[in-house]
């Protein structure tokens, strides 16, 4: 082993976003495709594996590679080309959504698909093939990629688009960074006619009403998302609030010049102008238990009862997770995990009723539930279904680990029996057996064949890859 090239001082302890996993790795920070290629060589020579890491915002082990090499791509963060006439942008993989929207919004454009946080990188977004609150309409982010370049562990550089190298295009997007590393990404942005969205907010009294609203009303909106009070039981099981939003059309916004200004998109750093949000998570911690969350959720539901319509900036509507900085710290030292399931529309109500009831019976209700409407897509490792998703956050403690693990295994069974799927960027407990069942043997065989072609020595491996595919 080449100990001089792998100095132990490069060893860095990396965490997932939820602070529930820790894995040390040799961190390299390449600035170009050539430097990535050099790291591949070094890894091959020393029998080590390599994982790409963008902003480290994944809830699980997607950007961790314990004991191996991690490529920190945050230095490859240039927007190479931006054309405000066509809305096409070409960027390096380390560019964050924040960088992207802040560069294009003042000129009247917005990324067609964004995650609930703006701190993710484009490389990471493509690797996981993220979706937004408009998945039912716009599909995942991959559908808006016109072309990308990538470097493979063989040293080969490839360019892919839906027409050129299409098989690789549909596999690398959603491919978890296991086939190659993106070096540049060209995407089509969406035209805006206002800095604001028109948002309808309304309560839903139970799970049936909740899912019916998402299903029936989605076609009338550009975005739709539900908050689900996972602590409510009985006849109120699955109650919550729907936020549905539309773009404003040309001429709808009389103050267009003003609302498009960047400063009117920025999330305010203080609440009521005085209270700094950066310390807010300390005040949330005391409520992060079953009783406290029940109280907060009930209060939130009561507050959501009056239906109302308002206009809100794009940033404020989309990046809810960024509203309270470091909110994940309020879950305490052992962190949080997220369990998200995607279930076909016919089976979602029954499956989630069973899951929510089970969580109450076990005394482990989710502290935050979020629902969305989805449609299928063509990407190889797709998580999408013609149905809905329910994301649930759970607090991890030393005493609930074993119980929670058992419950999530039961959840997996319920979701699989309902024909559901899972999202690799979220769940942290998915096993190879579950993966094989929802992806299907044929898809996995296709992926493995591509993997062998792009990465014959299996240099690209993350902790996530080894966990869900059982290693090479």
């Amino acid at each position: 082993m080449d100990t001089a090239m792998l100095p132990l001082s490069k060893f860095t302890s990396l965490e997932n976003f939820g602070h529930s996993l820790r894995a040390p790795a040799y961190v390299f920070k390449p600035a170009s495709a050539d430097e990535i290629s050099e790291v591949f060589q070094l890894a091959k020579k020393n029998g080590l594996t390599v994982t790409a890491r963008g902003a480290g915002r994944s809830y699980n082990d997607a950007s961790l590679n314990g004991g191996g090499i991690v490529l920190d791509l945050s230095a490859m963060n240039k927007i190479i080309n931006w054309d405000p006439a066509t809305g096409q942008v070409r960027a390096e993989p380390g560019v964050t959504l924040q960088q992207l929207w802040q560069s294009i919004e003042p000129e009247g454009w917005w990324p067609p698909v964004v995650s609930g946080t703006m701190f993710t990188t484009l490389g990471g977004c493509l690797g996981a093939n993220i979706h937004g609150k408009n998945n039912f309409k716009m599909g995942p982010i991959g559908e808006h990629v016109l072309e990308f370049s990538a470097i493979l562990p063989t040293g080969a550089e490839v360019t892919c688009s839906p027409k050129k190298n299409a098989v690789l295009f549909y596999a690398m997007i959603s491919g978890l960074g296991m086939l190659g590393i993106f070096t540049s990404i060209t995407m089509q942005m969406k035209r805006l006619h206002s800095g604001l969205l028109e948002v309808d907010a309304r309560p839903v009294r139970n799970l049936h009403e909740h899912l019916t609203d998402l299903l029936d009303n989605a076609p009338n909106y550009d975005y739709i998302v539900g908050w689900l009070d996972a602590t409510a039981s009985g006849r109120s099981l699955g109650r919550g609030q729907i936020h549905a939003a539309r773009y404003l059309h040309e001429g709808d916004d009389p103050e267009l010049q003003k609302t498009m200004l960047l400063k009117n998109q920025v999330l305010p750093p203080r609440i009521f102008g005085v209270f700094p949000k950066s310390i807010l998570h300390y005040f949330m911690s005391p409520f992060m238990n079953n009783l406290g969350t029940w109280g907060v959720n009930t209060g939130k539901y009561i507050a959501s009862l009056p239906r109302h319509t308002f206009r809100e900036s794009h940033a404020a509507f989309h990046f809810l997770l960024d509203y309270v900085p470091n909110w994940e710290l309020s879950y305490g030292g052992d962190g949080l995990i997220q369990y998200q399931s995607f279930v076909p529309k016919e089976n979602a109500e029954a499956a989630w009723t069973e899951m929510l009831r089970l969580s109450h019976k076990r005394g482990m209700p989710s502290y935050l539930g979020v629902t969305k409407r989805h449609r299928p897509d063509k990407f190889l490792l797709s998580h999408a279904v013609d149905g809905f998703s329910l994301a649930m956050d759970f607090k991890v403690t030393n005493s609930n680990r074993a119980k929670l693990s058992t419950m999530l295994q039961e959840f997996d069974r319920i979701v699989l029996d309902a024909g559901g799927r899972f999202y690799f960027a979220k769940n942290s407990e998915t096993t190879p057996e579950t993966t094989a069942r929802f992806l299907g043997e044929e898809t996995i065989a296709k992926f493995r064949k591509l993997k062998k072609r792009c990465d014959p020595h299996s240099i690209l491996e993350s902790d996530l890859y080894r966990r869900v595919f059982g290693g090479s």
Partner: protein
Amino acid sequence: MSVQKPFLPPATPLKPRLRGLIIGASSGMGAALAHRLVREGYTLALVARRADLLNALCDEINKTSNERRVLSYVHDVTNYDEAPTLLRRIVSDLGGLDTVIFTAGVNYPPDPAKDNFDGDRQMLEVNLIGAFAWLNPIAEMFQSAKGGQIVGISSVAGDRGRVGNAGYNTSKAGLTTYLEALRNRLTRHGVNVLTVKPGFVKTDMLKAAVGPTPFAIPAEKAADDIYKAMRARKQQIYTPWFWRWLMFIIRNIPSVIFRRMDF
């Protein structure tokens, strides 16, 4: 070289697995600690010189735990140059490293009629220089990663230079001082360094001992004490506990008396 990692069950937020390395694991306290840590949920890399003993231990542990929990690496700690490379291999195989236990040690009590230079040198080479070879790179890694735990198995024998076994006393005194130096360097970087000073423990080493060996305890009892101290992130322990007071007295016997004792 193709990349091939041995498959170990993955660590997840709900099934966290601490990853440990035991150097000198094939018998005695090392083997007892391996059994204990696996029961506590660790995955382990076991390093030892004697391949047959090491492999038998690994097979036994993997069989009783119904899954692959330990990996074995045959290595003689006096092959100092191998340590940094083997360390990198192990950290890659385990997927990280949280705890290191250095328990490699030999004891060659001198025959008063003969010169014991060879034995003395071997004791220093294994017990002390071997620790430097492994713990120096581990200290650098833990310092850089801002976390980790180093456990060194020293001995009550290092607390005083006695009549019978200068080499062993010196190697353990040196190890104790080395561990203290590591502690003073690494605590500020979030690393815990635990010095363990066992009294007499019923291991192969004890069978070779000359003279009385009072209060001897089984290796499992010592492993239990050590594990509890690791969990509490203590700095130093004696095992069993009363050696602390015994050694307090012995350390404070004035030289003018101590040098007249046969002890």
